[in-house]
């Protein structure tokens, strides 16, 4: 076998009391596509962060082409050595143009303008995005196009190994296929590819080798030959505790003000029944998300009734007072306050209920936090620790618990609530959504992912240019029906 491009040996990382990575090694060979799997907090991100220099490990050695690489948490040095990372959210400056972004903060910046242009155009062409103009403002591009520009940026200067963190979380089927094709091409040209994902199917189809992390240790590392999805699931969570087994459904009991939601659009009236989970399905960036935001009072002009009364909240505050809760698709920007503790993040909208004369009762706060933690099995740091010391899936659970468990809504608006969380967190969130519905809550889920609608919803409206097409869950495969309605 050839020599590895990158070798990480005996790497350990601890965050406070958490051992994020325990004495693990990983070798990346040219031409490989490694699928990196693991639950939230298993150490995937930590491993990627060490390899790309964002985190300095406590112990460990890294070599690139056999040369020692100091692991001091210097992303620049590793980038110069050809080790690049593509984050879930493309790291681009949206106020600059495509060409400028490709050269931004790379050695290309010091090259003459003509050469910059040529290299950038070549890079775009080599990732199959030659149709994107160098002059286009990045802010005008679609999510998938931005991701391609990000990859082109990695490609424009020496590229040896590329790490992709959940690259398909926000992509449609077609874009996902195209991206996978590109990754195969990159691997064939001798690069190393590390593909972090929660989607077992994608990993099984695409990757040549599969590495599974659990609680900071590599529990499986083998060539992707004859591995089944069942084997992966087993390796991911050995403890046979089935997700949601400890769940005590409907702890808050049935709500007594269940209300049907009716939304009038120019062409039709959409009905959302209490006790049911109704999906709004459309392409990424489509109107399903706008509809949710308008129901939360974030934009004007929604014509709706909730129960018997007309419903047009003037803003989030009024919406929350009316029993309407909203989980945004952009967790970090819209839902969490970095620097505040997990329990403050959980309870901020409800502090009034936990305080007397403006003084917060810590005892009651703690009790409520513990209840939510147990119900959704929120794992990681303590309740008084910064929310950002929790992993992504557990942060999402805190947001879900805030809007679903601490106080029961009448109308629950969820935008891609299971996006970017692992299989077990997905199940736990799904169980909580079910429980809310069976307590009489009207639940609306907006998503661009058919499997998410399939997981959560009883029926759906599919966004078709001007109108919404109702798709009930029938005898045929629900996902197929959704996609058929979308593309018909």
């Amino acid at each position, binding site marked *: 076998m050839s020599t590895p491009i990158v070798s990480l040996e005996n790497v350990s990382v601890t*965050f*406070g*009391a958490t051992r994020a990575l325990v004495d693990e090694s990983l070798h990346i060979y040219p031409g490989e596509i490694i699928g990196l799997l693991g639950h939230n907090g298993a150490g995937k*991100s930590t491993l990627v*962060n060490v390899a790309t220099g*964002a*985190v300095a490990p406590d112990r460990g050695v890294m070599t690139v082409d056999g040369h020692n690489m100091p692991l001091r948490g210097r*992303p620049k040095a590793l980038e110069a050595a050809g080790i690049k990372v593509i*984050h879930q*959210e*493309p*790291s*681009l*400056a*949206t*106020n600059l143009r495509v060409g400028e972004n490709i050269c931004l*903060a790379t050695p290309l910046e010091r090259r003459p303008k003509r050469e910059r242009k040529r290299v950038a155009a070549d890079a775009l062409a080599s990732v199959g995005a030659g149709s994107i103009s160098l002059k286009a403002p*990045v*802010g005008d591009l679609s999510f998938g196009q931005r991701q391609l520009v990000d990859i082109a940026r990695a490609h424009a200067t020496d590229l040896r190994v590329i790490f992709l963190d959940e690259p398909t979380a926000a992509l449609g089927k077609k874009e996902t296929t195209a991206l996978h094709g590109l990754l195969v091409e990159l691997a064939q040209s001798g690069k190393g590819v590390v593909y972090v994902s929660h989607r077992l199917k994608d990993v099984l189809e695409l990757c040549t080798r599969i590495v599974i992390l659990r609680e900071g240790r590599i529990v499986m590392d083998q060539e992707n030959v004859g591995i089944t999805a069942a084997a992966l699931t087993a390796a991911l969570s050995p403890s046979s505790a089935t997700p949601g087994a400890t769940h005590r459904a409907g702890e808050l009991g049935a709500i007594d003000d269940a209300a049907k939601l009716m939304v009038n659009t120019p062409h039709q009236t959409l009905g959302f029944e209490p006790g049911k989970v109704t999906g709004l399905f459309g392409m990424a960036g489509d109107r399903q998300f706008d509809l949710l935001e308008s129901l*939360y*009072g*974030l*934009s*004007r*002009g929604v014509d709706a009734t909730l129960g018997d009364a007309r419903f047009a909240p*003037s*803003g*989030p*505050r*009024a919406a*929350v*007072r009316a029993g309407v809760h*909203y989980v*945004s698709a952009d967790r*970090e*920007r*819209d*839902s*969490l*306050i*970095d*620097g*505040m*503790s997990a329990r*403050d993040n959980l309870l*901020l*909208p409800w*502090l*009034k209920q936990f*305080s007397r004369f*403006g*003084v*917060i009762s810590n005892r009651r706060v703690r009790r409520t936090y513990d209840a939510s933690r147990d119900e959704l099995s929120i794992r990681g740091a*303590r309740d*008084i*620790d*910064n929310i*950002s*010391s929790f992993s992504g899936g557990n942060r999402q659970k805190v947001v879900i618990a*805030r809007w679903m468990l601490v106080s029961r809504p009448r109308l629950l608006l969820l935008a891609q609530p299971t996006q970017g969380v692992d299989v077990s967190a997905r199940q736990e969130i799904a169980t909580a959504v079910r429980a809310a519905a069976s307590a009489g809550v009207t639940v609306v889920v907006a998503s661009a992912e058919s499997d998410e609608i399939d997981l959560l919803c009883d029926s759906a409206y599919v966004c078709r240019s001007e109108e919404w097409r109702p798709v009930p869950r029938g005898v045929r495969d629900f996902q197929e029906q959704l996609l058929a309605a979308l593309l018909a």
Partner: protein
Amino acid sequence: MRVVRSLAATNSTFIGLVILIIVFGSLNSRFLTSANAENIVLSVTELAILTAPLALLVISGSVDLSVGSIASVGGVTMGMVMSDTGSLTLGILAGLGFGVVAGAINGGLVAYAGLNPIVVTLGFLAVWGGIAMYLTEGATLFEFPGSFESLGSYRLFGIFPVALLVAVVVIGVSWWILHASRFGKYLYSIGGNERAAFLMGVSVKRVRLAMFVAVGLTSAIAGMLLAVKLGAAAPQAGRGVEIQALTVVLLGGVAFAGGAGRMTGVIAGLLFVGVLQNGLVVVGTSQFLQQFFIGAALLVGIAINDSMGRLVRRGPASPGRDLVDVVHDADTGTAPDGDGQPGPVSRSGEEGLRSAGQHDYEGSGQ
């Protein structure tokens, strides 16, 4: 040891304070006397009154540069009303009233008109400073009613002047708001992520306005107490106070971008500035070097705080920012914000004033 470690972690100003006391104490025996300690405390009393609420404002992601000028006008207003009416009470009420109005103007422009707090309050730094000079024609006001004189010489238990009592109350209330009350959580949330706070139903504008009014009010109180201390209302009494106050806030470990900071740090910052100013005089340094040392202390303090924070992030359990968000910062370093669409909305109760679809929510902090 753990206590020391956590103090050091949250605030190197504590350590700096101890070092300063040791250095000045060994250089001059007069430094470590109870009389000098009293001097130190009294020298920062008025500053403390406006600095504590200012720290809360900075934690919420805003800033007020006009505090010194509001203090000047507050003192002058009280002086003029007292001279005209002969009533101490009316003078105090006028000063308080001015503070509330000045704070409300700042707050209204920042919270409701969506203007940048630095720009707005920089403007009022000049406006109120100019008005203080104009009202008095640059002269210092004397000759006040006897009740004013006796307020100045009043000492509780023969030791504590009125200003110190006020300062203790203001610091106590600020501490309580920040660390025990609901309002304090709202301040942190707005400073930490204004958009998320708004989406959780926090009345961002009302909290902002209230905080600016509180800062305006306490600035005017500080200005009046300064006049009490000096026995005269000088139009330039508050000049430069905003710089001192902000220095204390930042030395106290409050994040200038908002979202982080503790009251204990601010108290340490206050004592640090007090000890430094006093100590330099006691050991006979040129008074012209005072500013230099305070500036240098600020720079060194911030640098140490920052690197301490980084070190501690690798150690065990320190609630607050830790390694994960360093990573997070690195992740998002180049990207986000581009599509930070302003959440279009207005709060309940004012929809009639706004045309449909108008975006009235702005990220008005920094």
